[in-house]
């Protein structure tokens, strides 16, 4: 039938420009380093890049990235949940406006938002002066704290939206029932609202944690080269100033993809329930 065949061009595009590149990424990851970055010496294939990826130096970078991403996710959750909750309890008309207000910064360029934060963290900026006059070290710039803040700033909306959409569908009569039965508002929150919005929380955490792992802009812009993450590591293999190593970078990318797929398959059920996948 004609309408079914409509899906072909779009799907072929994805196959050609998404799946085929992934295949090529795989081929690169098992080939030897050639004279030029784009050389593909596939025969014989080698697993040396994957072995190299598990070298302790790199493993420490992975662990550091996970810590950074995990901390950022946690902060986003703590900041974002009350906001999502607050918006979901507003009357419908007001909700749209407040939601839009949350997303307006997000709808502008990721780069611009990171840059805006960058300007604030410079030593001779408003905040820098404030901090040093308070006696706090003004080394927010070029440090992991700056990068952490940058991550939270850039990815907070990704946490708020999934939680909000789950809370929006939440049946608050359950809470009424609990209060009728004698529970305090706090108790009903922790025993009813929180567990039932769990799928939204998982979705939000996933949509923050996963992109942060692969992010190479924020650590580079706000970390001044002192904050190595998985993202910057991969970028360095392809576009770095020092030795580039495309096959190694390809192996790293595929390993990152494997981790992401693991996360998604582990939380597949929750993500499905939150209707985000």
């Amino acid at each position, binding site marked *: 039938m*004609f309408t*079914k*065949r*409509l*899906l*072909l061009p*779009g*799907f072929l*595009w*994805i196959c050609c*420009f*998404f799946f085929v*590149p*992934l295949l*090529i*990424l795989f081929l690169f990851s098992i080939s030897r380093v050639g004279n030029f970055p*784009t050389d593909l010496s596939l025969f014989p294939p080698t697993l040396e890049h994957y072995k190299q990826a598990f070298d302790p130096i790199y493993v420490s970078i992975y662990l550091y990235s996970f810590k950074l991403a995990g901390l950022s996710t946690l902060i986003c959750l703590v900041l*974002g949940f*009350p*906001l999502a909750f*607050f918006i979901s309890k507003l009357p419908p008309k007001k909700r749209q406006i407040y939601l*839009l207000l949350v997303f*307006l*910064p997000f*709808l*502008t*360029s*990721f*780069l*611009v*938002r990171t*840059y*805006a934060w960058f*300007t*604030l963290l*410079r030593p001779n*900026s408003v905040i820098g*002066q404030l901090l040093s006059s308070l006696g706090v070290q003004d080394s927010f710039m070029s440090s992991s704290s700056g990068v952490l803040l940058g991550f939270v*700033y850039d990815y*907070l909306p990704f946490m708020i939206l999934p939680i909000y959409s789950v809370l929006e569908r939440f049946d608050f009569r359950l809470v*009424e029932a609990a209060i009728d039965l004698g529970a305090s*508002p*706090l108790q009903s*929150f922790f025993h009813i609202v929180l567990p039932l919005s769990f799928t939204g929380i998982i979705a939000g955490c996933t949509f923050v944690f*996963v*992109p942060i792992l*692969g*992010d190479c*802009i924020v650590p580079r812009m706000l970390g001044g080269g002192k904050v190595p993450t998985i*993202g910057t590591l991969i*970028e360095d293999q*392809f*576009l770095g100033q020092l030795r580039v190593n*495309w096959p190694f970078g*390809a192996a790293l*990318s595929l390993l*990152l*993809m494997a981790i*992401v797929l693991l996360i998604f398959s582990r939380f597949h059920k929750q993500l499905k329930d939150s209707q985000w*996948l």
Partner: protein
Amino acid sequence: MRKKSDVLPSGFLLKALKLEIILTYAFLYIPVVILIIYSFNSSSQALTWESFSFKWYLALFDNEDLVVSLMNSLKVAFVSTFLSTLLGTALAIGLDRLKNKYSNSLEILSILPLVLPEIVMSIGLLLFISRFCRPFFESFGFEAASMLGVVIGHVTFSLSYIMLIVRGKLRHMDKSLEEAAKDLGATAFQTLWKVTIPLLAPAILSGAALCFLLSLDDFYVTYFVTAGGSGFHTLPMYLYNMQARNGVSPEINALASLLLLISGIIVAIAFILQNKKTS
């Protein structure tokens, strides 16, 4: 009298929560607001406010490279929005009509570009294009080749976004109108053209606006596909290079504010269109 469904705690905790919410909103907006304010600062020192002036904005337009980047960004955005809207809508409709055992997996496969980290997709495209497509593209000329690469990158993820949005609308759409059309003797194509697509129009348009915005603002995919900027620049890439070379400068502030303004206008238009359609 307290509403029964009020889960909010009373007293101090409530005040703390309200404070937290206000602070979070402030956190989201303060850097951007400060950026915009200082872009009008005629002094180049970040701290001292001299006077209100447009001079940095004017300096931007004198900059030929920047104007070229802007044009590049717009060209890429229009082409990729057009292509991805076409392909994505078709994909969504096709998937909706296909009701066999594969349709679920196909849907998930179609969303994969959004799910995987952008860096993986961008690098894959870098390898694919630079290794296998370059010779072919270059026959069109160097600039067209770079632009083609960027467009391909943008379409690949925009496609999935549009697919998601239109598919969502399709799920909630009232199928009885389509059935009525078929009962009245319309062919599949006529039903599609005269019934389905007009009903989907708000979703398609807001999806297209989103893709345009994403393409304009995109840095990641563009950066990798052009291997760090081999001559072909879009606006975000230009900003990144300026920042990498000069750090913070008022011109960059002006540029960033301009980008914010363009994005804001597009969002406003999309918002108005959306509300007009539903009313």
